[in-house]
């Protein structure tokens, strides 16, 4: 207990120090020292966290929630917000992921960014991100979480627009920031309502309030819907997912860390953290599940036809996040967390592998220009292959275990609002799993197989080379984790015979104890095995289909299919025209309305003309004139005024 109390603040302190040192003095250091400082700033917290994890494990189950009070922050009336950290089962897992993967990606970045001139700026932002993300998961009240939430948003904005010299990349940053703003606004409103209802923002007190019925169903629905809108912004769900594909403008390690492994899962974390609030509203839960399933499906369909290697992975991320929301929506919070963890492993591997490919191909990102890279970059190929197997859900690899868990829970958990929902969710989920398998194998085959490299420029082909050691190291570790990472939680039907192996669930269950009572499992666990084989079979089917089309030189069949379903293909290619639709909305409502009505009429005529120039302008001018008669610079006059004032006051006071 005391170890945790003593050491927990340092987890936050080191990234902050790293950020400050590199941010202020970075220009005076050599590159070697910049990345040494930055890596140490993440590695040390990881080491601390590992030891803290064991000391947390040694505590009895019910006291595995340690609050470290650092300072009281705002105390105004009944609003008392303290600056304190909360380490429990949930945040422990998150901190491990953030610092662990964070360290690996810092190491990877050393190789990836070695030629960049803004080296210190890059690592400053990365450390800023780690700091903000840790604040998000370690905060013991919603306001601290919100600060972290905004902090990661800022770091993400800065890193997406890292190459701000290019307009398109700078505006991708802006798009991410503004889209998130919509979500954050709703999140803030939720916080305000919650504060109004509960009178506190402390997680413990909110839990108390929701357990004792202070928060009623309708209020809970409003609050949780607001929070969920916030989550759709940060975690890229319908309707606010549009920023994530564009966010690929940032450096690839950033995409791996922020836009795949950690930041985008903040929404999942937030809902899991506040699950006691969400389960009060079955309506919101159903909405979350539906949105999650739809996002998973639509993003997967878009990913089918994308040709930019990072875009495919980006839509895949959106789709996988959809799975997590699906899990959260059916009350399977541990399953969502498990998928969060395994997804962090394999998606980080995939992104880093993509980064390695892009690095090798001299910044080429179009998979149609790749191909046949299998023997040229062996490490990348192998790790990418492992991660692909993991994400497509083949048994011994991690992705299967978590995805299966989610699908099983989606099917098995009854829904009080819409009775047919579980089966629908399961169908959408299983189809998405099939699509996932297809687009991932398509990506893999187009990049690493399918004949010779198709790039136009001979020099690029000649220059294809394996990445430096620092990048390969990170790849291998992450690939290893994506293979074995799932074993922390084996499927139910296996775990039944050996319950100890099901440790992930056991670890988290105490925190989610309230939710487990509230969601009822309606089907027997033995069905799980059957479902498992169904999804496995579908994944294999997709694999062979993709192999048939893309393993060799680009086959005629795929082009033929694309031609015969031209409309569908185009819609998918254009991502359902969502961006265009949003642009149209903004153009009509914001730009036109603001320009014509707000700016030209309200601002120009009313405020500027009437208020500013008229009342304030003339008013100030006249009063200024009148009053400056007294301020004439004449010293004698000043003294006389003073004495006159004294005498006036004197006569007032005496009579």
């Amino acid at each position, binding site marked *: 207990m005391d170890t945790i109390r003593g050491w927990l603040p340092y987890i936050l302190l080191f990234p902050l120090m790293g950020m400050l040192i590199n941010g202020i003095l970075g220009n005076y250091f050599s590159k070697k020292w910049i990345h040494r400082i930055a890596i140490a700033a993440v590695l040390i917290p990881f080491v601390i966290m590992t030891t803290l994890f064991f000391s947390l494990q040694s505590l009895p189950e019910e006291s595995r929630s340690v609050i470290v009070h650092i300072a009281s922050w705002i105390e*105004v009336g009944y609003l008392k917000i303290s600056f304190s950290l909360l380490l429990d089962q949930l945040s422990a897992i998150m901190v491990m992921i953030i610092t662990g993967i964070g360290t690996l990606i810092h190491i990877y970045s050393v190789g990836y960014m070695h030629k960049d001139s803004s080296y210190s700026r890059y690592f400053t932002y990365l450390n800023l991100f780690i700091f903000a993300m840790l604040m998000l998961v370690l905060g013991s009240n919603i306001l601290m979480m919100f600060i972290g939430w905004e902090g990661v948003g800022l770091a993400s904005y800065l890193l997406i627009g890292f190459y701000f010299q290019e307009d398109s990349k700078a505006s991708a940053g802006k798009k991410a920031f503004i889209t998130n703003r919509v979500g954050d606004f709703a999140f803030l409103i939720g916080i305000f309502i919650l504060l109004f209802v509960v009178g506190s923002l402390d997680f413990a007190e909110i839990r108390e309030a929701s357990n004792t019925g202070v928060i009623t169903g309708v209020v809970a629905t409003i609050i949780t819907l607001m929070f969920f809108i916030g989550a759709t912004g940060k975690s890229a769900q319908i309707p606010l997912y549009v920023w994530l594909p564009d966010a690929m403008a940032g450096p690839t390690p950033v995409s791996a860390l922020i836009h795949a492994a950690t930041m985008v899962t903040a929404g999942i974390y937030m809902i899991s953290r506040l699950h006691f609030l969400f389960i009060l509203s079955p309506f919101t839960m159903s909405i979350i599940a539906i949105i999650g399933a739809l996002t998973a499906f639509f993003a997967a369909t878009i990913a089918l036809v994308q040709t930019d290697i990072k875009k495919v992975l980006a839509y895949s991320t959106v789709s996988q996040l959809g799975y997590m929301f699906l899990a959260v929506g059916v009350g399977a919070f541990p399953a969502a967390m498990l998928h969060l963890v395994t997804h962090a492993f394999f998606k980080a591997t995939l992104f880093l592998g993509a980064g390695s490919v892009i690095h090798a191909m001299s910044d080429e990102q179009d998979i149609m220009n790749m191909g046949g890279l299998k023997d040229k970059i062996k490490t990348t190929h192998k790790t990418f292959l492992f991660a692909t197997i993991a994400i497509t859900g083949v048994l011994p690899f991690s992705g299967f275990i978590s995805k299966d868990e989610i699908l099983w829970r989606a099917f098995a958990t009854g829904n009080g609002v819409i009775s047919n929902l579980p089966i629908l969710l399961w169908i959408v989920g299983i189809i998405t799993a099939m699509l996932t398998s297809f687009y991932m194998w398509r990506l893999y085959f187009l990049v690493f197989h399918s004949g010779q490299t198709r790039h136009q420029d001979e020099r690029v082909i000649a220059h294809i080379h394996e990445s430096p050691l620092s990048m390969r190291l990170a790849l291998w570790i992450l690939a290893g984790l994506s293979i074995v990472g799932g074993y922390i939680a084996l499927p139910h039907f296996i775990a039944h015979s050996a319950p100890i192996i099901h440790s992930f669930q056991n670890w988290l269950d105490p925190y989610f104890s309230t939710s487990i009572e509230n969601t009822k499992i309606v089907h027997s666990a033995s069905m799980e095995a059957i479902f498992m084989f169904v999804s496995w079979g579908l994944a294999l089917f997709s694999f062979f289909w993709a192999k048939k089309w893309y393993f060799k030189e680009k086959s005629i069949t795929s082009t033929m299919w694309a031609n015969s379903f031209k409309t569908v293909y185009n819609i998918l290619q254009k991502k359902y025209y969502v961006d265009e639709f949003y642009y149209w909305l903004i153009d009509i409502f914001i730009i036109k309305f603001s320009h014509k009505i707000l700016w030209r009429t309200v601002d120009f005529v009313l405020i500027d003309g009437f208020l500013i120039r008229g009342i304030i302008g003339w008013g100030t001018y006249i009063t200024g004139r009148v009053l400056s008669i007294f301020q004439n610079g004449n010293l004698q006059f000043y*003294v006389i005024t003073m004495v006159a004032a004294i005498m006036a006051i004197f006569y007032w006071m005496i009579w």
Partner: protein
Amino acid sequence: MIDNISTIHFLKEMLYLIPLLILVFSSMIILLVDVFAESSNKRYLAPLTSLFLIFSAISIFWLYKYIPKSGVKILYNMVYVDHFSLVISAMLIIAAIITVWISSDYLERYGIAIGEFYSLLLISLTGMILMVSTTNLFTMFVALELFSIPIYVLAGFFRVYGKSIESSIKYFISGSVASAIMLYGIALFYGVFGTVEFSEIERHIFNHYDSVAQIAKTEPLLILGTLLIMAGFLFKTAMIPFHMWTPDIYEGAPTTVTGFMGFAVKATSFAAFFRVVVSIFNTPSLVYSENGTISPSSWINVIYVLIIITLIVSNLIAMSQRNVKRMLAYSSISHAAYLMIAILTFSLSKTKDSYGSLLFYLLTYLFASIGAFAVLSIFEKNGSNSVTLENLNGASKRSPFLVASMLIFIFSMAGVPPFGGFFGKFYLLKSAFVDGSLSTLVLIAVITSVIGAFYYLRVLVFMFMKDVESDENIETLNVPFLGKLAIALSAIAVVYLGVFPNSLIQFMGETISNFFIK
């Protein structure tokens, strides 16, 4: 009457004055060093001075632990050191350190980097610290002169500029008149009571008089004395209509000196006035009429009316100023009105909160005000010693660092939430509001602070949105190292105060000494 104290005991008691002694001796040392040092070595004077100041600050921290909550009266009750005086002293020393760091390069640009500047600054600081650590009207008056006279000289330090000399002379003459008025008040008190010790005066008033009306009838000299002493303080704190010297002097004085006196003179006068109010003016018979209500002709009502006038007039005039230094002068006048609200609140409610809010407000004002003047001192055109709004055109291109810092300072002064000034204002007005009788005042303060936002933000408009007509004027500004350090630390402090106000405001509340709670 106190017995004679022996020489040894006297020296022992001087230990409580260690911060002062360090300052006095360092001012002499700097004078001597200045005489003997080669002119190329004179740039080390500023670091040397700040070193001494840091020593003095350390001794204050040491004393803070050492001194009991009741404070210590020493040297025939001439000096009274308690936690309040130490906190104010620490703020004053911080202000001096920042001023020294900025002045180092500023004086060099004007070609008068000489030790006398630092020496006078230190003597002035000595006077200020003495002024806040006394409960004796004689000491208070001597201290007032001790800090004023060096400031008069510092205001005219740019001897070649007419404005600087003008401001010095104006400050000297009007200040002397104000001192004379205050001295007259002290003399009247001495004449009526035969003592100048706060506690004895208080006891005397308490024993002999019942209500304001009775005092006005039988002892009008007491009211006259109260008024004259108050007038002296009102002059130093620049409440309207005792403010008229402020704009001229703020404009003409060297900008770093303006920054220093903008905070330090004000803070000192407020702290001393606070003591006088709490101890003497707050005696019930000086406040209440026979039936127990606040008498309409008590000093509280006078201050009340003056605060309202000050809030409205200063903000209105500030709107029409083009010269930024003059604008900040009027802004400092409006800040004075806020501090007066805090004093009124405390004298009515006597809560720890209102006490803490006064000190916290001073702290936020310290960094924001000195920081803003520091930025201006770098922006001002060489040779003009003044900054108009137009001089700030395109400033964001010339030095992003300075403009970002200025943004923080301006936001803080205007009271925009994430910065210290907001919480300063917030806590101050909150404690005033909690005490119900001042809610009208709070309302006016809130409305006028909206007017205030107009002229504060206009500075930013000129800095960010207007460009210089010709390109040749855009030259990047070189910010000297010490100046950069001072501005950066001030900006960080402002942000820190805005983000973590709570621990500090609680600490400030804890520094209340027995002098105030009795």
